[in-house]
């Protein structure tokens, strides 16, 4: 489903080029749950961004369902993300001026779904936030915000879910709750999940693990 071929990423840091990710190739099958682990600065988040089309590789190609996304323009990428990819960030990145309900509804509205309101309510029920739907992010705890972010990521029923340190900003109790949600999603929907994490417990939920260090793959299990 997701295919990376000799993908690398180099940025200019000051006056010097800095290789964040050395050329790597990777195949992720449909329905697979893969965890990407590694220390800070190993290139995990960069790899995730390349898969999501949030960033462009310096070399190589990324294909999703056979479509080379590195050749797509910004608007086509946005459309792809809306249809096929859900993203959960470490710092939630909810839109502060929208309620929890509205945050979840936004991707469906972008896609032109007519039943956005009903589906948004259902998703919030799924993540256990029925009574908090009309609160603003500033009125929610970290755990609640991340659950809203997860509901938002699932809004258009994407076949792919990407998560960048989803429990990195949560306490252990909330972190476990999020872990359970990821597990349930994988089991019930068969969603392909690519998860970047430091959390060993969360990584243990995955079918496969990819370890990175200094921008290189050091282990695949």
């Amino acid at each position, binding site marked *: 489903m997701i295919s990376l071929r000799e993908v690398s990423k180099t940025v200019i840091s000051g006056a010097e080029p800095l290789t964040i990710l050395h050329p790597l190739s990777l195949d992720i099958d449909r329905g697979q749950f893969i965890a990407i682990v590694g220390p800070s600065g190993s290139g995990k*988040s*960069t790899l*995730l*961004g390349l898969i*999501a089309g*949030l*960033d462009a590789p310096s070399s190589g190609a990324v294909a999703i369902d056979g479509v080379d996304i590195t050749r797509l323009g*910004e*608007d086509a990428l*946005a*459309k792809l*993300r*809306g*249809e096929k990819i859900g*993203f959960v*960030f470490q710092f939630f*990145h*909810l*839109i*502060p*001026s*929208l309620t929890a309900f*509205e945050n979840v509804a*936004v*991707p469906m*509205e*972008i*896609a*032109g779904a007519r039943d956005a309101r009903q589906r948004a309510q259902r998703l919030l029920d799924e993540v256990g936030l029925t009574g908090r739907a009309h609160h603003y992010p*500033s009125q929610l705890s970290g755990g609640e915000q991340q659950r809203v972010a997860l509901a*938002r990521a699932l*809004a*258009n029923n994407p076949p792919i879910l990407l998560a*960048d340190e989803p429990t990195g900003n949560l306490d252990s109790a909330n972190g476990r709750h999020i872990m359970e949600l990821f597990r349930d999603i994988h089991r019930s929907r068969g969603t392909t999940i690519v998860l970047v994490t430091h959390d060993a417990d969360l990584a243990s939920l995955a079918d496969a693990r990819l370890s990175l260090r200094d921008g290189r793959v050091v282990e695949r299990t």
Partner: protein
Amino acid sequence: MRFVLGMAVRETRASWQRLIFFFVCIAVGVAAIVALRSVIRSVRDVLGGEARSLIAADALISTTRDWTPTARSTIDRRLADAGSTARTETIETPTMVRPSDSSKVAARMVELKAIQPGFPLYGSLTLEGGQPYSHALLEHHGALVRPELLSALGVNVGDSIAIGTTNFVIRGVVANEPGRNLGALSLGPRVFVDFDDMPSTQLLIFGSRARRVVLARVPDNTLDDMVSALNQDFSDDYINARSYRATDDAIGRDFDRAENYLSLVGLVIVILGGIAVSSVTRVFVLQKIRAIAVLKCLGASSRQIIAVYVLQVVSLGLAGSLLGVGIARLALAGIPLALGPTSTSLLAQVHYTVDWRIALQGITIGVLVSLLFSLVPLLEVRRVKPSLLLRDETRRPGRDVARIAAMVFVSAALIAVAAWQAASLRAGLVVCVGFAALAFVLLLAGRLLVRMITPMANAPSFPLRHAVLHLSRPGNQTRVILLAVGLGAFFIVGVRSLQSSLLDEFNLQVSADSADMFLLDIQRNQVDEMRQFLADATNGAGSSRLIPVLRARITGVSGRVTTLDSFEDVRARGSLAREYTVTYRDHLEANEKVVDGRFWNGPSSEPEVSVEKGLHERFAINIGDVVRFDILGRTINARVTSIRDVDFKDARAGGFVFVFRPGALEQAPQTYIAPLKGPDDANARAVFQHKLVAKFPNVSVIDFHEILATVRDVMSKVTLAITVVGGLVLFSGALILIGAVAMTKFQRVYEAAVFKTLGANTRTIAKMLLFEYGVLGLLAGAVGSAGAVALTWGVSRYALDIPWKVFPAEHLAGVGLTTALVAAIGVLSSLDVLRNKPLATLRAE
């Protein structure tokens, strides 16, 4: 579309408080345009529909000479051919009036009008106190006067006044006469007498400035032809015919000009609002960058996101414009209240309304300006990358072709809007280019000043150091505040300085040795007696002399450059064809100097004339040219032998465009004028005038002190109007300032939180704010005041032709007040920055 609409509503809901100044700025500008245009339109509706009433007839035929039998028969014939249904005649002349009771020592210049029973043919003459007007009130030496004459002479209804050599009884007080309120400046209050009583006043003597008018009612379908035919018949005579339509057209043109000029002023205010919009939008987009990145991550395209904010801008622009229309309506409703129920001025008779077309125009401009000024900042949305959420990367500026194209488009669109408002592409271009140039100069000056104070970043005072650093930090509002507040200070200080210059200039003219009174219409046979009267010290007159004057018209020029063979050719040159008052003498006056040729010495039988420099330059009449004059029917060909530069502001000897060499005109019928220094004391002046008019009833007295008082009054009203507009500009600037402070408050709150955790107390942070805004205000005031100095120089030199003067006190006051205003607003708007607890702020980050 649902997404775009939904997001626009939600974004507005979340940020309306931050954006409130956005639409208040637009509202102020739209209110200015709608109110100013509506006032003009409302006044025009009254006057435009009443042109007939303004001239009290369909057609006017007028002359400053006696009607000749030929002229009368021509007029009779033309009126009969045109099917005229009514006619009446009037005679108007300025003259002196005094109480018949010699114990009342007073005299006053009035505008005397002798009327026949049919007057007016349109409109009505109304009297005070509900007294019905009837021509019978004027018969047998009755008079109707304006109320101000009663108080000036200390008389009442029933008392007698002397006009010329005859006494008239005041039988009523005039409340309103058709067409009277149009003039801004009149020589004196109106007095009506019976047409048949006019000869008895002995004012219709040689040299009198009386204007004789035939008023006629003529059917519309023959009116224009009749007027054209009459003007053709009298092309070489001192007779002019016009219709109410010419008045209508003239009024229409004047009102068009006024409306377009004032709406341009309103547009400048809207543009200032637009600058606020641009600033607000820029900061708004900066604050929304993460949200925009998230939306792109969720599948929204740049186009969809831009559409959200464009919709928000349009909605706010529309809301602001509607608010502006509401403010305009309130302002218009307040005009009658401000004028008072007893006001008899024209403005009090107008019904002020906001025409829906003007409202629509104002709303369109408000929305357009909002859109145009937010377009360029909104384009930044395209450059927001969703990878920002993963990596905090700085966006490289790069060259953005779309941004440059948008700026070009916005500039062109603004010029188009200005041209639309001014009804002239040229005027629109001038306004836009002038505004841009002014803004550029202000910004450049501001940048220079900021650089100059940068060394203060090393000052020992912590608050001062950081205040100076803040002026040039990323995302600062320095430019916008300098521009908006600086512009307001520029207008207000500039206008007030100009006013002081003009008043100062006028004051100079009535200095110790200057003539401050002019006597007119002195007959030849009165010269000796007048000299004796003026020489008699008991009468109180200072130095004086009598100057002979004649009225002349140019009927041809044979010159090196200019050749005009007939009066028609002269008429084609516009003002050259007017009637001139000429004199003859063998010396130059103190306010003249020869700039070309040679002034004569002694009389000559060959007519020679000296020409004023301005006329020589305007019409290319040069040394050696021969100018043909018609003086009371006699043709005189005079050779130009010198060009004089005349200081018309020095009134000691008047100012003559043409001065003849003695020898040619002594025998021609002429009158005399006498500039003189009147008594200093106001009572003594009144006594002098009274005695003079009692002895010489046909002589008119123009008192400069009264004229200057009237001129000062008019000038102060004009200055007030301009100052009000400048005040509106400054008010807009203040709003922009408040908006700018509000928009960057989030930054200040965060900084204040960090400073507080590092040990700074509330007082220190307050000082930082005070210094920062104080310095900004100082810069804006300094830049605005410096610009005002340049403005007064340019206007004094090129428009008003008066000496340029600087009034340091006004400029310093301008700088001081601007500094205080900006500092006060800046600190007051940031009070919650001082009050917020740091932890909550840092956690939110």
